[in-house]
């Protein structure tokens, strides 16, 4: 690492925002089940000034969609800050490293490393899953590519190593609860720079989780962005309650069921949740997952008092040109 | 049970071990080999009777089915005896094979019975909870239910096999089961295995055609 770049690990804008101590806002964009870039681009344009980064999901719930790599490039071109997601389900270590090199060469600076939903949930249930490496091993691989300039096998990356700002997931609502914090620590040890959590409906459990996180000092070693999902109806909440690894309190479902204007109530709940989460020690930002309701993101950001988004205060030049362009490879 | 209800040879075996497991029984030196039972069975049901086939058991009168009953020594077989001594009238079309336990009735054996020309087969064991070998009757019932599916798949038809629970003291129930099963098989007609009989039967009675059942297996 050159001394000039020592202050930051990467050129990621998200890294700058989090490093300067601002409360970060990221949001999710689900790529389409088609070859059209339109939706991704318009969502990116809508989100670029109200969020600090946009996650592009990688065939989420094992449904075939436009690739997260391509979607990240569309976001980049639309002026956004892509946060590319990568799951272990579909690629082996060769394909993953190759895609990471490729993504970096195209200007992508953030990578979230995930296990991925099992293929039995998706639209290709007869697929063979890969899981050559798991999410923690992936995190470590990306960190070593960045910091140690080596591939997983130990072979050196002689020029232009990919310098990704590394994200990971944490799910305070999965079991075993006590181990969740320890597993988060494993992810940090492996090299995670920031964490996006599963969507929080059960604030009480989330607070308990964060308490343990802070107790172990993990909030000093990683930036935690708490997940928020606005729901459009009590039916949606009821469904989410059945998803493994999600918890939705009945009181919330009742509240939603009683509401006259359910969408409005969904936005209200999301805004209240964000406000409450900001008060929880160790939370450094929010990650808004408005699944198939991307237009809710600016509204929530606005109402939760997250706007305007802060500027990068350092003198550091914005996103240096991709290394791939400098070295003609 | 009258003498003619008895299959020519009864298999009496009183294993010291659980008879549901032939291996154990054989270890104990008791031969309850399927071979013997099969021979008994063959004598009882015989093969497709003659070329004319469509007639009754002895080649005269309307078609009569051949039904085989595997009866547990402790219950159904005693019930059959009781029915006999009570002079109850019931189906003349069934033959009883005495088993040491209903659980001893092997699936392969029942299939063989159909191969040999049986039109229907049933297994009768003790009331639930009363099995001499604890769970032989429960095993038998599960196996027979599983066999129904296989019989559907091979074109014979699962309705041709059944499991019943009877206590040794239930002579009238034994007779009732025999009649019930006979009625059922009479409705179904000759086994699809016996093509000639079945065709003749279908032609004569306008009953189920020879095709319906054979197509099941073709799926």
């Amino acid at each position, binding site marked *: 690492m050159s001394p000039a770049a020592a202050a930051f690990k990467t050129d990621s804008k998200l890294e700058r925002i989090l490093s300067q101590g601002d409360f970060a806002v990221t949001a999710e964009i689900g790529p389409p089940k088609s070859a059209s870039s339109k939706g991704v681009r318009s969502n990116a344009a809508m989100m670029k000034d109200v969020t600090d980064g946009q996650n592009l999901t990688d065939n989420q719930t094992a449904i075939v969609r436009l690739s997260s790599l391509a979607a990240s490039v569309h976001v980049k071109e639309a002026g956004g800050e892509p946060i590319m997601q990568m799951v272990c389900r579909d690629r082996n270590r060769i394909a993953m490293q190759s895609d990471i090199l490729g993504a970096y060469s195209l200007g992508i600076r953030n990578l979230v490393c995930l296990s*991925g939903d099992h293929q039995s949930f998706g639209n290709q249930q007869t697929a063979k899953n890969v899981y050559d490496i*798991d*999410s923690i091993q992936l995190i470590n691989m990306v960190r070593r590519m960045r910091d140690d300039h080596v591939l997983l096998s130990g072979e050196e990356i002689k020029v232009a190593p990919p310098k990704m700002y590394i994200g990971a*997931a944490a799910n305070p609502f999965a079991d075993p609860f006590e*181990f969740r914090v320890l597993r988060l620590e494993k992810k940090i040890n492996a090299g995670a720079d920031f964490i996006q959590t599963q969507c929080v409906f059960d604030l009480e459990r989330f607070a308990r989780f964060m308490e343990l996180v802070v107790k172990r000092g993990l909030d000093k070693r990683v930036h935690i962005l708490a997940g928020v999902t606005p729901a459009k109806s009590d039916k949606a909440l009821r469904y989410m309650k059945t998803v493994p*690894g999600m918890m939705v309190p009945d009181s919330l479902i009742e509240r939603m069921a009683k509401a006259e204007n359910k969408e409005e109530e969904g936005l209200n709940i999301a805004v209240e949740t964000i406000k409450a989460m900001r008060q929880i020690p160790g939370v450094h930002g929010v990650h808004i997952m408005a699944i198939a309701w991307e237009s809710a993101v600016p509204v929530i950001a606005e109402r939760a008092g997250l706007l305007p988004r802060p500027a990068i205060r350092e003198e550091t030049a914005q996103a240096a040109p991709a290394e791939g362009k400098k070295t003609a490879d | 049970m009258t003498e003619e209800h008895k299959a020519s040879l009864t298999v009496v075996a009183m294993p010291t071990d659980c008879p549901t497991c032939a291996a154990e029984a054989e270890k104990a030196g008791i031969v309850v080999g399927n071979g013997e039972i099969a021979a008994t069975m063959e004598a009882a049901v015989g093969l497709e009777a003659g070329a004319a086939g469509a007639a009754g058991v002895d080649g005269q009168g309307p078609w009569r089915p051949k039904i085989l009953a595997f009866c547990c020594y402790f219950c159904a077989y005693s019930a059959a005896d009781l029915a006999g001594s009570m002079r109850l009238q019931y189906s003349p079309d069934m033959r009883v094979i005495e088993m040491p336990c209903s659980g001893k009735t092997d699936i392969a054996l029942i299939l063989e019975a159909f*191969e040999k020309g049986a039109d229907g087969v049933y297994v009768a064991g003790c009331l639930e909870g009363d099995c001499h070998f604890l769970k032989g009757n429960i095993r038998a019932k599960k196996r027979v239910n599983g066999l129904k599916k*296989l019989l559907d798949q091979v074109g014979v038809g699962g309705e041709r096999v059944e499991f019943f629970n009877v206590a040794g003291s239930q002579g009238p129930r034994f007779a009732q089961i025999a009649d019930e099963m006979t009625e059922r098989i009479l409705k179904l007609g000759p086994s*699809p295995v016996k093509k000639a009989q079945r065709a003749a039967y279908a032609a004569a009675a306008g009953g189920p055609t020879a095709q319906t059942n054979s197509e099941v297996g073709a799926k």
Partner: protein
Amino acid sequence: MIVAEQKPIAEIDRLLEGAKKVLIVGCRECVTVCQAGGEKEVNTMASALRLLWATSGRNPGAEILTETLERQCEPEYIEQIVKVAGEVDAILSLACGVGVQYLAERYPVWVVPGLNTKFAGGALEQGVWTEKCGLCGDCILYKTGGICPVIRCSKSILNGPCGGSHNGKCEVNEETDCAWQLIYDRMTKLGKVDRLLEIEPPKDWSKSRDGGPRKVVKEEIRI
């Protein structure tokens, strides 16, 4: 043991289309224990096929012979049916895939599998078998409290559990225990949960199936 289950009879029927003389070969090892291809199943299969062909009129006049070998995974036992194998035009093996291949390698007739070979596992209860070992070639059970994540975790995660673990069950379905919950519970009981904090490095899959058929050689007993 190797656990297998029978193919549907309709599929076996198709595999044997046009056969005149079929030899059904069982095996007295694993498939006898899991009641898929032992002597009993061989006899049942023979009867079932005869009945099916009698009722459907397919394979008219076909004859079925039966044999059950001590093992179908060793050449000397395969040899025992040399005479009868020469008389048939099709062999239906009720062994695992290993047995099918041994028969096919030895005899120049149409050899077809009657079973679907499922996994290396054991009995859970009478009539229920479950997968236990992924045959990965590099055992790590000493790290995971004797519970195999390679095969029992739906995602083969070596640093689990993933975010789908819920009330001890896997995200894939309610019937499947989350292997990592089991591992965590056991390591906790053994007072060794701290060992799970170590990052387990990526697995060396070259020791698994990915290098073509593996071989085990024990020099000192070769002749």
